[in-house]
């Protein structure tokens, strides 16, 4: 989404008539941030500065909101974002092992991105597929039952692919 093209009333939708201008611009902030991130992969500083002017919200406040939520990133991200689930069910079925294995294989720690931007490794609370534990997600795809070396190797191949 181009910052210049944001139409506040259109983004707010039906409730627009009853909100003050201030409430409106604030109300669409998270939604707009989501769209910027979807387009660019992260929230570049220069775009946030433009957004601050456009919506008339102080830059500090935009950063305050964006940094509160886990989904927003201020640095470029890997092409594949791999999230290893450390939810209860996955945890008791050995997802820590999956995480350690990936950290060793790619030489990065959880939360980091490889230098060539192939992948970003993260952990996630629970993706809600506890029946398939342990699971990891590669972008939006869920890989389930990662038990044993064969499955682990397959996971690594899928990431490299």
């Amino acid at each position: 989404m181009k910052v210049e093209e944001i139409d506040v009333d259109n983004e707010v939708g039906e409730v627009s008539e009853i909100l003050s201008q201030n409430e409106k611009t604030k109300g669409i902030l998270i939604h707009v941030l989501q769209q910027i991130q979807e387009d660019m992969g992260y929230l570049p500083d220069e775009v946030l500065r433009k957004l601050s002017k456009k919506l008339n919200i102080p830059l500090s406040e935009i950063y305050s909101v964006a940094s509160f939520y886990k989904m927003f990133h201020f640095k470029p991200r890997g092409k594949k974002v791999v999230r290893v689930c450390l939810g209860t069910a996955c945890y008791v079925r050995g997802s820590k092992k999956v995480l350690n294995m990936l950290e060793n294989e790619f030489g990065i720690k959880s939360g980091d991105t490889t230098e060539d931007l192939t992948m970003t490794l993260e952990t996630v609370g629970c993706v809600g597929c506890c029946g398939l534990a342990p699971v990891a997600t590669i972008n939006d795809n869920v890989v389930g039952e990662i038990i044993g070396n064969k499955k682990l190797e397959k996971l690594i191949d899928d990431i490299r692919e």
Partner: protein
Amino acid sequence: MEKNIIIKVCMGTGGVASGGEEVLAKFREMITESNLNAKISSNCHAQKVGCRGFCSKDVLVDVIVDDVKTTYKHIKPDMVERIFNEHVINGVPVNEWLAGPEYNNFHDKQTKVVLSHCGDIDPEDIDSYIAVGGYNAAKKAVLEMAPEEIVNIIKNSNLRGRGGAGFPTGLKWELGLRIKSDVKYVICNGDEGDPGAFMDRSVMEGDPHSVIEGMIICAKATQSNSGYIYVRAEYPLAVKRLQMAIEQCLMKNFLGNNIFGSDFSFDLKIFQGAGAFVCGEATALMRSIEGKRGMPSPKLWRSAERGLWDKPTVLNNVETFANVPKIILNGANWYRKLGTERSGGTKVFSLSGKVRNTGLVEVPLGISLREIIYDIGGGIEGGKNFKAVQTGGPSGGCIPAELLDTEVDYESLARAGSIMGSGGMVVLDENTCMVNTAKFFLEFTQAESCGKCTPCRIGTKRMLEILERITSGKGKDGDIELLEELGNHIRATSLCGLGMTAANPVLSTLKYFRDEYIAHIKEKRCPAAVCRDLITFTIIEELCKGCGSCKRVCPADAIRGTRKSPHRIDKELCIKCGSCFDACKFKAILKV
């Protein structure tokens, strides 16, 4: 011969992850290729259905021939051809792939109200929902019923908030109706974040219209004209299906201006969360919709008085809303009788952990934990012994074996030191270390604490440090008492539910499994052999065949030995990863 054949392929997140799309595509391809509709039947089609709650057996496929349903489990695309040829065309089911009695047991012992359509209808098609009576309740409520009448039915049904706190829904709506305001909001809380809980996801993915219908009825009852569904960002499929459902409703005039031809209007929007567990808390959720940091505010007034943008707001959980259409259609008495005296109806639990059948389970309130875990869940995986069941996610507690006959309702679980919560139910077996489990949950809440209030921000951190000390063998006298003291203070003084309940996993395990804490602290021993710093791996010489499997997998080259003679683990080099333990086929590695 004319046959009516429907093939239903499970396509919840679990189903899709196991290859549901490919299976469905293959079935559709087979139907087209065989030209079956022209040859033997007037109607044969394959459709996607939502999660039926038995994800460990995915992809599940129903083949329904003239109303006789046969269910297959673990179906892969290459198995489709045989099922199609033998069963669909020749009418002989493929016996070895049937889901079998286990599947039937799992389902037969449940009482499905909220999940009654999940796994049965196509969640992406409004007509599929209408065909099973969908939107009749909303139509009735909007066209024929007075707001007070709806509120009374919900009050009499004894429906209580399914998000965990159990506040009577009817009372909330009554307050929402009584407050006068030009603008009021209805919000559906779909920010399901408890680890081990996925019932709201399944309802939003499998039966999105039931949630929307419940919200329409609530809007009418409280005279609100705008609504939001707050869905957590980690559920893209739920967002997609709800979005489709809203668009279909707009086309049919079930949402928008003058719905069902009445003078009542209701607009509904989806708000996608951005990844913050604390936003499941009502006030934090509303701040998030307002575009602010999702931090809870002190509850000086109820949301029904001052909520979103300071306007009266009625906020309920996904499951609560999904119950509403059924209550309107079947009456308050019907619903009340399903449950106990104080809590009406059923509750959906997501049963997971070390239990044989993991999945979604809907049961009447008042059923015992034992019935859920043994009769429906099929008991403990791998014939191990049951140790505890953790209910209510990170806000809940662990309930030990001696309390397995506890009735499941809000009050009994609270008495046992846990909570009903949103419905996560994780079964732990004898191989689970309770100290480590408590640490796991505290790690979660500590990381998700928003930082606004001191008891939660600093208190949970200090508790976590003590637990880390204990599990790494550095626990000292007085640690247990300190944990209890801290826990009770955090419970009493935190701002919101996240903090108030954060200590529950620790306090409940201290209550029932104190001896494990003592073993960690005094004997530097982990009874369940889980805590890495407290265990050692040794090879039992008599059992070792010298196959070398362990040596090959050891990442630290800590295993020495020549072929066909017993191997040995160098304790200096061993990093205690457990790879050898998993690789040994002869159970020759001892973990203590």
